[in-house]
């Protein structure tokens, strides 16, 4: 009965821990390996304006999140301008204004584009989009003719649009097409015209402008393609080929026929878009995306703590693994050092002194403390007074070590800090009590064993992968807790008992 309760509790704790971990890894995107990296793009747009000297209004488009991409860390560098951002149809417009502006003014925006690992859910509801028709009356009737021709040659909505785009781009264009397009056969003009033709015929369509993230460079060309409502969603069509798909690296920036930048009170001098590919750790990306999307588990995680607390918690979260090792050592292996969890505390102080120097320091200070203890024994001092005197001696000893290390420029010798000192004196106290109670052999054996266990715990607790796992997934501690609870009901033999009772397992001679 008791065991069933224990198993259920352990199973529940492990399930919660593993479940949360899996969710955070697969959905939130926190990596199991801290250094895993992924690429992102840094996009920069720059607009230069020759101002007239009077009021200046400059506006450009701001990128938005899409199903495929997330836009992070948007920064606008436009000194001397007032900045406002307002939605405009399907776009967001960045308005920069100045009362008096003269000479060349520069406005830059820079942002990071990440590809969404898990695609944002497709919004079924279509965003409102102005269906303005700019074609003159005569052109509208030609548009209807072209649409009817494409309609006749197609089977469904997708093929209709594909056929229409092919009609517009084909080298042997009809007179109608030539009338509407003129000499401009750029994808931009074609996408824009196709959208007009579709709208005249009562369909939802628009030109989309963006960049090809695959083509990095200081100055890249914008790309234009067509988007039309097919069924219940916006479908992208390549303006050049008419195919109902665009390359996966095409990043949509703004929609409609407006140019990227609009200037009032000056003359657009030069505009440029630059793309650089940046390597970013999966971890940083997941955290940035999580904060951006307001994910609960990211906003209430240890990563949101101030830097000092983060450092402290990286260490604290690694303590349970050390504690678990001690539980295993005692209850399953049958080994133990000084105190219950003292080796974990010693391991923590090794973090400050570093392993090798820590071991040397602890051994030397321990030996010195015990030698002094041996001497005090002849003075017949009472227990607490004797321990007090030993602690004082150890502190003086460590002060001397530190001063000497400084004199000879021995860097590790200066690593004695408050925490290791406290742990060191506590250890010496425990060891001397054991010396009094169980004799020197037992005391030295336990002290050496404690240092070995502490070194092992240190190696485990200071390992960056271990620290990362418990910091990124604190719920893994629930899994350790489940295992610890199971060990707490382990009533089998300890490994050491197999040696101890071996004689009972042998047949009697």
């Amino acid at each position, binding site marked *: 009965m008791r065991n069933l309760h224990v198993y259920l509790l352990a199973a529940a704790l492990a399930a919660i821990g593993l479940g949360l971990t899996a969710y955070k890894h697969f959905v939130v995107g926190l990596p199991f390996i801290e250094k895993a990296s992924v690429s992102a793009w840094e996009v920069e747009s720059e607009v230069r304006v020759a101002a007239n000297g009077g009021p200046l209004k400059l506006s450009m488009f701001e990128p938005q999140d899409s199903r495929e991409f997330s836009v992070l860390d948007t920064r606008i560098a436009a000194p001397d301008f007032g900045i406002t951002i307002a939605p405009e149809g399907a776009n967001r417009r960045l308005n920069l204004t100045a009362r008096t502006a003269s000479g060349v003014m520069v406005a830059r925006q820079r942002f990071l584009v990440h590809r969404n690992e898990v695609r944002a859910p497709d919004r079924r509801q279509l965003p409102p989009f102005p269906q303005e028709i700019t074609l003159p009356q005569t052109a509208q009737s030609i548009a209807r003719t072209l649409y009817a021709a494409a309609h006749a040659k197609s089977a469904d909505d997708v093929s209709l649009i594909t056929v229409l785009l092919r009609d517009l781009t084909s080298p042997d264009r009809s007179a109608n097409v030539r009338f509407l397009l003129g000499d401009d056969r750029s994808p931009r003009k074609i996408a824009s015209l196709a959208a007009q033709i579709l709208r005249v015929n009562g369909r939802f369509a628009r030109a989309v402008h963006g960049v090809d993230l695959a083509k990095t460079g200081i100055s890249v060309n914008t790309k234009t393609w067509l988007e039309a409502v097919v069924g219940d969603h916006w479908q992208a069509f390549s303006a050049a080929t008419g195919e109902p798909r665009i390359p996966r690296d095409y990043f949509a920036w703004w929609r409609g026929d407006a140019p990227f930048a609009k200037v009032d009170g000056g003359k657009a001098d030069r505009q440029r878009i630059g793309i650089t590919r940046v390597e970013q750790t999966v971890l940083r990306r997941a955290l940035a995306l999580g904060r951006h999307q307001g994910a609960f588990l990211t906003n209430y995680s240890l990563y949101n703590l101030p830097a000092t607390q983060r450092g402290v918690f990286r260490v604290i979260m690694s303590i349970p693994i050390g504690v678990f090792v001690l539980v295993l050592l005692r209850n399953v292996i049958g080994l133990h050092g000084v105190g219950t969890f003292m080796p974990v505390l010693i391991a923590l102080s090794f973090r400050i002194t570093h392993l090798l120097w820590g071991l040397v320091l602890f051994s030397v200070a321990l030996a010195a403390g015990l030698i002094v203890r041996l001497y005090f024994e002849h003075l017949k001092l009472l227990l607490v007074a004797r321990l007090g005197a030993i602690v004082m001696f150890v502190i003086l000893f460590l002060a001397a070590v530190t001063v000497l290390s400084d004199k000879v420029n021995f860097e590790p010798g200066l690593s004695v800090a408050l925490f290791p000192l406290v742990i060191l004196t506590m250890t010496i106290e425990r060891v001397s009590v054991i010396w009094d109670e169980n004799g020197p052999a037992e005391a030295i054996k336990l002290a050496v064993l404690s240092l070995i266990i502490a070194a092992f715990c240190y190696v485990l607790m200071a390992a960056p992968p271990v620290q990362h796992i418990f910091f990124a997934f604190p719920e893994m501690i629930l899994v350790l807790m489940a295992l610890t609870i199971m060990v707490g009901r382990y009533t089998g033999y300890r490994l050491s008992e197999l040696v101890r009772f*071996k004689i009972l397992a042998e047949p009697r001679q």
Partner: protein
Amino acid sequence: MMMPWRIAHQLRKVGVLGMNARNGDYILPFNPRKLYPLVDDKLLTKELAQREGLATPELHAAFHYSGEIRRARELIDKYDDFVVKPANGSRGNGILVIKGRIGDNLRLASHRLMSWDDLRFHMENILSGIYSLGGQEDSVLVEYCVEFDRVFENITHLGVPDIRLIAYRGVPVMGMLRLPTSASEGKANLHQGAIGAGIDLASGRTLTAVWRNSVVHQHPDTLAEVSGIAIPHFDRMLEIAACCNAMTGLDYIGVDLVLDRSKGPLMLELNARPGLNIQIANRAGLAARLEAVDRAGIAQRPAPERITFAKHYFGAAGV
């Protein structure tokens, strides 16, 4: 070379009790923590035993405060032999056995000499909690020094041999005679180097002995045979052990007894966490015997029946 799992399998078959099983299956469920002071504090145990009519070594004096220790000589100098022990000591730590005087000095059982100042310092250390479980303040007991029975004369060195019986729910389940050696400095604790000889509960005779985890037949100091010795008054010892569970409320208990040549069996102390070495001394498993007690449902029967059960099942011919 036996494989570890083969050993584990064999130990389970013999019914050997491991530390985890002792703690998890017997001590935690059957020995309520709040009753521990009854056995941890030897003064309380003594009072309890007296109320129950069990003989214990006579208490000469008890010291609870540092100030009282100044009067130690005045109070106890009239006794030639006496034992000084911490009331809350464990594993025999802090016990001094005084056997007579040489000039102004006290003579220890280990033939060392000690001044009264040294003794007072030792008592102060006991009071400050150096030997007590958990290091709390402690008391000093000064007791009658047991004159052990002549039967043990050839098989002991320096100290007093004692008999450890383990009683489970009123049934004595296993016994061991502990013989001090020069290595144990007169102490009767196995891990300090004493010999442990298993006892056939049916006849009260010693079986094989264990010393430092190996089987021995002779005392290492006197070279006398340690097996096959009939312990006098063994039935009385079983009776004492059988009533200790009810007396303390602890179901799993170690009872330490000494055999005085004039006063007979005396109960020395009780232990709520008796060690497992007794199994090696008896070359038998405790778990098998504890399970036998539970299976037989003998715990509710009167004491004589429980002792008969123990003698029948836990003798050399039994489990």
